[in-house]
């Protein structure tokens, strides 16, 4: 019995891995961590395989009680993590004793933090992934009183991964890398310019499905024949709103796909809070 008890759930946390692969053809969303970079660092530091499930924590962290010892690591956003009320460093292995309490303080940087545990969370796999998704997995968000299990194998003393160079600038960067999307060329030259010269403010309604923006954008494009979309696709709705699809998005859509975020663009936007502004930074595909 190796368990973590959720004393307080925080704002929104869920268990995520790299997502579902092979079921998009049945309309199943990809899911998986919003910020793959932070998750990868977390698992590397812990010595876990890179696809190991972690806890994704949004804006305000939970309070967790460990019922057994563990090696943990926290990456991504800085939410002032504490063990038994003492601040702990991020991006480092922390040894946890049975009974220790992990909680979080102020959000200082970024928007999503990742809690990894050596061996990984062992929540139930559905359609090839442990990622929580409403309607598909039994749970979709952390709840008070919930018990989480993690794998206790591999529990010899861990080596610390001190040589790893960790990129942190993206947590505060306002520049979101975006390629032209499939329907980009249908925009007028004014619209194209507007896309890359406007400060877009992240709307409160943003979630794991989509990041929405407050600004309205001039739009006279017709809807398209329903076509594939992926996380990072930026759609232009008939009312002139831009929607950046995120990891839990649907597999197809009928709005013009004007931009497409790079993986780095997705990771950067995943770390932005509602109310923050961003700018799209044009990236071109290589010429063929």
């Amino acid at each position, binding site marked *: 019995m190796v368990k973590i008890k959720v004393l307080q759930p925080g704002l929104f946390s869920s268990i995520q891995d790299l997502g579902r692969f092979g079921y998009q*053809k049945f309309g*199943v969303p990809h899911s998986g961590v919003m910020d793959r970079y932070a998750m990868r660092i977390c698992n590397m530091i812990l010595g876990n395989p890179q696809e190991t499930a972690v806890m994704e924590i949004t804006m305000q962290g939970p309070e967790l009680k460990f019922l057994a010892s563990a090696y943990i690591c926290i990456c991504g956003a800085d939410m002032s993590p504490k063990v038994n009320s003492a601040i702990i460093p991020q991006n480092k292995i922390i040894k946890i004793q049975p009974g220790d309490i992990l909680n979080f303080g102020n959000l200082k940087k970024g928007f999503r933090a990742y809690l990894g545990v050596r061996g990984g969370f062992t929540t139930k796999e559905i359609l090839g992934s442990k990622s929580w998704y409403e309607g598909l997995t039994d749970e979709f968000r952390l709840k008070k009183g919930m018990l989480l299990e993690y794998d206790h194998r591999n529990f010899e003393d861990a080596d610390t991964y001190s040589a790893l160079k960790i990129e942190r600038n993206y947590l505060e960067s306002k520049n979101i890398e975006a390629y032209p999307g499939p329907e980009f060329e249908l925009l007028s030259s004014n619209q194209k310019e507007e896309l890359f010269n406007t400060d877009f403010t992240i709307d409160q309604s943003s979630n794991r499905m989509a990041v929405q923006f407050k600004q309205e954008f001039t739009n006279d494009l017709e809807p398209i024949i329903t076509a594939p979309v992926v996380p990072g696709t930026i759609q232009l709705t008939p009312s002139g709103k831009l929607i950046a699809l995120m990891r839990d998005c649907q597999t197809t859509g009928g709005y013009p796909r004007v931009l497409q975020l790079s993986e780095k663009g997705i990771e950067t936007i995943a770390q932005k809070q509602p109310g923050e502004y961003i700018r799209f930074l044009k990236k071109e595909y290589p010429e063929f």
Partner: protein
Amino acid sequence: MTYYPKITPLGDRSILIDFGEKISDETLDKVLFYKQKLENEKFKQKVEVINTYNSLLISYMFTIEDVYSEFLRLKDLLSKANIPKKTNYRIFHVPVCYHEEFGLDLEHISKKKNLSINRIIELHTAPIYQVYFIGFLPGFLYLGGLDSRLQISRKETPRRSVEKGSVGIGENQTGIYPKKSPGGWQILGRSPLQLFDKNEDPPCLFSAGDKIKFVSVSREDYDRIEQEVNEGNYQLKFENHHG
């Protein structure tokens, strides 16, 4: 001038192939022919291929390392076109109960389109529908083949909740709600089939390229089939079509 099929990257982890044609069975045959070819190809990393009416999307698990060589390879693969026409196929029967208890908008459709309810059922059960692809919700089928006499605009105010299995029409599309969800389609009946089951692999009853037919069943048969489905004893019926 744009040359089709057009191959473009979509972000760092996918490649989009746009066939540029309108919605038709011929386009779908072509799209599905190449989809199968791609599924038989060996890739350096795990990939998944999905289709829509006129596009294919190849998704890679991780960032594509050498986009250029992937492009060359896809170009080569797509240039060898000799698409066989499918003449023999199965038509799956989807039982639908058009009882007034389930067909919440039958009256409305009847008035609006000046058709009797029996005629609506006749027109809805006559065509062989083509499953173009699955999207929007897990298990939601994009079907082609609705009789134009049944085309009707969506409800002005969408329902907050439409029951699982509800069969509806929205503009020129007809479909089945795979789970209880909000929705604006005009509802004409309900199917007792379980279109999506997360505990099954594959989780979906149908795949892109399948052909289906709606078969009208009585209120009693609905209950019987539903029970068989719940007990895992229901055998999906089909007929063979020889071209």
